[in-house]
């Protein structure tokens, strides 16, 4: 039985898991859907009441029925890598690949339809609330008056992308940023804007959930950190991530979240305030984990490899 990993070639985090699976003697096929058609081949025949299909990349071939699990890590857009790339080819390649794989009976980290929903940050906030995780007061709006009223009530705000994505034309990054005290909110009329009460934090928390395993790490805010540096991804820091236990209520909330979202993997970000409360910020359904493992030594790669290596249902 084989583990199928869908990711781009530059993904060294996937390398960690490929390496670990090889040590365990588990067969792996790694490919990028961007290379379908081309370097990646796909064929499936429906007949005699069943589906028989194969995937190939280079000299490697795997039958769809021989897949124990599929890890959707950092895949390229199906059909986008070739000279004939087009929106229609992408649609055709996406349907062919994921449609057939979905019928393979393999276990998924994570199911594509669950991933699609789980990427919606506004939905994440609501689900976190329903699961009992504290969520900072948040407003998503295109109404300047609503933004001004929110700012009056909560005073110190941050702004962040609703989608979590960054503009590409031209390439920019939009870190979570503290809103200027004299901000003019007229421009929220030009696009949905996510404003959130600033959590004055003493640490950032990254909780990586792999199946039933919860591995949390904590990074203290430097005492000399600039007040404007609120986004741990972009803030300069000399502090390292340290392993930390997961409070019982948080663990229960996270497990409820994963069940409701039907996710096998999730990387949760929290801000820990000065009372010790972990405020839910987001859950990245394919979030990076190696940077935490490098600092803490937590066995996240091993947890992912173990999950992927398990037999398929009924297998």
């Amino acid at each position, binding site marked *: 039985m084989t583990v199928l990993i869908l990711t*781009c*070639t*530059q*993904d*060294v*985090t996937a*390398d*960690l898991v*490929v*390496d670990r699976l090889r040590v365990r003697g588990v067969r*792996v*096929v*790694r490919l990028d859907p961007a290379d379908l058609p081309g370097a990646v081949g796909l064929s499936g025949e429906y007949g005699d009441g069943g589906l028989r299909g194969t995937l190939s*990349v*280079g000299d490697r071939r795997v039958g769809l029925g021989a897949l124990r699990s599929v890890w959707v890590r*950092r895949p*390229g857009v199906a059909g986008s890598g070739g000279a004939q790339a087009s929106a229609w080819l992408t649609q055709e390649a996406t349907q062919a690949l994921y449609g057939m794989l979905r019928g393979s009976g393999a276990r998924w980290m994570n199911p594509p339809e669950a991933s699609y929903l789980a*990427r919606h940050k506004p939905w994440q906030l609501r689900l976190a609330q329903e699961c009992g995780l504290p969520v900072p007061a948040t407003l998503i709006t295109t109404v300047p008056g609503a*933004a001004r009223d929110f700012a009056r009530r909560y005073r110190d705000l941050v*702004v*962040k*992308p609703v*989608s*979590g*994505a*960054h*503009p*590409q034309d*031209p*390439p*920019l*990054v*939009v*870190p979570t*940023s503290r809103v200027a005290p004299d*901000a003019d*909110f*007229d*421009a*929220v009329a*030009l*696009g949905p*804007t*996510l404003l959130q009460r600033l959590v004055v934090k003493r640490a950032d928390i*990254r909780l990586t959930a792999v199946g039933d395993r919860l591995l949390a790490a904590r990074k203290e805010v430097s005492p000399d950190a600039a007040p404007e540096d609120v986004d*741990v*991804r*972009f803030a300069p820091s000399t502090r390292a991530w340290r392993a930390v236990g997961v409070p019982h209520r948080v663990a229960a909330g996270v497990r409820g979240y994963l069940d409701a979202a039907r996710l096998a993997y999730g*990387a949760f970000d929290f801000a820990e305030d000065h009372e010790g409360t972990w405020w839910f910020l987001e859950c*990245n*359904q*394919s*979030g*990076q*984990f*190696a*940077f935490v493992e*490098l600092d803490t030594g937590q066995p996240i790669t091993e947890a992912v490899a173990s999950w992927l290596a398990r037999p398929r249902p009924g297998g």
Partner: protein
Amino acid sequence: MRMFALDYARPAEDPQVTHAPPYRYDPLLQVNVLDDGRPAVRDHALLRELGSTTSTAGSKTHFDD
């Protein structure tokens, strides 16, 4: 006037310029390897230095950091 959040944007680093990694993908091993043939992931110091596995890696094409 532009979208509110863009007032807080900053230029993205060009990965082609700033992060050309000293490894390449080996389709036989299915991992990235260094010039000496070792898997790049065995060199933790290099991964730290390059930030290849940090939560901003891959932000250009993926928003699940």
